[in-house]
């Protein structure tokens, strides 16, 4: 047996050597075409969106939210449709609050945006409604990445995306991680003051329209000066919805 083994090992070894030297061809994507909600790590609302009509004009009755999406696979030579649906048992918003607009991936494109039309209804003044969007299978795409967290070097993805809709001031998602350094602790009254003084409702610290520390310092100080003048003029300290005196850290 041992004598025969060496006659087997040697040819096998030589064959392996030859195979090892063979140039490997690039493999192509062989999975079905899929699509997912794309999470840009540096965007504050990458995991969910809170949309508040309270920071919009009073005359605005509907608005469109755009949620970025990316495909898995190669671009096609024709437009392809994406099927988005609401997850009924995880949503409190009813169809009168929203319209999921048709979403297509254009020919030759790898990305698109889901357009969600939200409607301003009276009940949003007192209730925040939740809408869980989900990618469903369509003729062109299967649901893609079920859940992948983003990182500084790589975006993430998911097939579900939560949206919250209301018509009262909502604490911005980056208040505790960014805005607090310039405006202090959150309250609805303070946020309203910040909007009145700065003319802004969003203070992004990432993305193309991010604000610099210098500009945020200016906003923080402008609010502090406004409050100082307000308190002096009114002879009383401005308080928030819980009765706490409003203050700003930058003086």
């Amino acid at each position: 047996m041992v004598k025969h083994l060496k006659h087997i090992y040697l040819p096998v070894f030589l064959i392996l050597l030859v195979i090892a030297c063979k140039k490997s061809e690039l493999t192509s994507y062989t999975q079905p075409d899929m699509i997912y909600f794309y999470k840009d790590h540096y965007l504050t609302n990458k995991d969910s969106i809170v949309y508040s009509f309270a920071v919009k004009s009073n005359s605005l009755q509907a608005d469109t939210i755009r949620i970025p999406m990316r495909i898995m696979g190669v671009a096609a030579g024709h437009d392809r449709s994406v099927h988005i649906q609401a997850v009924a048992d995880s949503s409190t918003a009813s169809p009168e609050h929203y319209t999921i607009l048709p979403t297509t991936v254009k020919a030759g494109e790898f990305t698109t945006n889901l357009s969600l039309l939200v409607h301003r209804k009276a009940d949003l003044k007192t209730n925040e409604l939740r809408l869980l969007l989900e990618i469903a299978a369509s003729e062109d795409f299967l649901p893609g990445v079920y859940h992948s967290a983003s990182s500084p070097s790589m975006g993430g993805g998911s097939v579900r995306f939560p949206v919250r809709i209301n018509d009262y001031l909502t604490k911005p998602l980056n208040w505790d991680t960014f805005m607090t350094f310039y405006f202090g602790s959150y309250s609805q009254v303070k946020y309203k003051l910040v909007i009145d003084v700065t003319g802004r409702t969003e203070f992004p610290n990432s993305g193309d329209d991010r604000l610099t520390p210098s500009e945020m310092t200016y906003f923080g100080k402008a609010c502090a000066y406004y409050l100082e003048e307000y308190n002096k003029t009114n002879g009383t300290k401005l308080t928030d919805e819980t009765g706490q005196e409003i203050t700003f850290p930058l003086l």
Partner: protein
Amino acid sequence: MTKYSINIIICTLAALVLASCYKDKGNYDYRQINEVILKTDRETINVILPDSLKVNLTIEQTQPNPAGFSFEWVLYLSGGTPLQRRVLDTTQNLKARITELPGTYYLMVYARDRNTGVEFQKRLNVSVLTPYSEGWMVVEENNGACDISMISPVDTIFRNIYSTTNSGEKLPAGTFRIPEIKTYNGDQKIYIISPADMIQVTYADFRKLSTFNEFFWEPPVPKPQEYFVNSFDDMMLNDGKIHSRSLNAPAGLNKLNLPPSGNHYIAPYELYTSSTGYVVFDTVSQSFLKLNTSSSSLTPFPTPAGTRLFYLNNIGKKLLYAELNANPKCYAYFKNNNDDSLFAYGFNPSVTNPDLDKTEILNSPGLLSAKLFVGSRFLPHLYYVNGHQIYKLDIPAKTAAPIYTFAAGTEIRAMKMYRNLKTTTDPNNNKLIAVATHENGEGKVYYFPISATGNFTNNTYSKVFTGFNKINEITFKSLR
């Protein structure tokens, strides 16, 4: 495994072992290499723009070959990040027009032996200069407008350089300040302050870059006084209010911010140490405060334990002048609130107990009403101007005396210490005072070298430059 196989393996291994011991006879085909030395007719080069750069290269070699060499001359910005390179020429003798901004560069010549492929190189230092790269900037006023002249290190005077660059536009009447010119991150900033405006100009040719409102997120009513630049901390003083910014920030818009809150009126004197940052004197509370340029906020000094010579957070006197002495020691000069006593306080703002010395100045003629001050960076001395005389105050001796007297009627318009921020080994660095005067309708600039005792060398000036209009300000511009 059979005995036969084992024998084959042992023999093979033995052969390999023996082969490794085989003596290397070393009978290779050695060749002498071509030893090459690159020689240039210039080693350190100054190019004054606009000009071209010419360098002749000779090659000394032991084995000349008809194939010859290929050449490449490359100019690199010294210390530039990211590394910037420009190929100037590919012939043996360099001849190229220099279009780089003023600064310090190094020039590499690479010569590749076409026969062997071996490359040789040589490095030369190049300073790209303009006529305005270095020298005393002189702000002159004439017919209700101002312009800038410059006295170069070789005593050439360039006149009206601001209006020449800016299509004849002049500076406003009363232009009174060009703050000390610092370089940060490769950029040299020049600010020019007039009673109701402040502009920034390019360091290369004084082209106007920006006007007052562009500096601020929310511009105040313009009444600019000073603009201090230290490391990444910018501090501007407008009508006693501080507007600051920190350049230690991500890329993006970075403007001067709103002033710190509170009822302050800050004295226009610069005290900055790397560990504490700016220390300012509030004339309202008569106390020193620390400035945070990022948050544009002021913080009082804590009260040290025990009995101290004085407390920075409670001086209780009027400030005459303050300046850094031997870093980090600062000197501040006060008069009491009755304007009848003078004091010099020495302190280090970076330590728990900042007070170092407190001197009541007994005999200091003219100090109470002095208008120009320059502090020594080596000795406990203060130079000040009263009338047509320059005085030296010796703090430990508690006395002051005139060390130079101009002719009666001379108006001393400006006085600055020579500080070469690029070449700190310059023997005159911090040891020469420039003084601008107005005498019989003519502006003059004098150089007074300072001796080891703190007096002027030989009790007089070393150079004088004449022919200026009425001088409002002089500021030394170091090389970038």
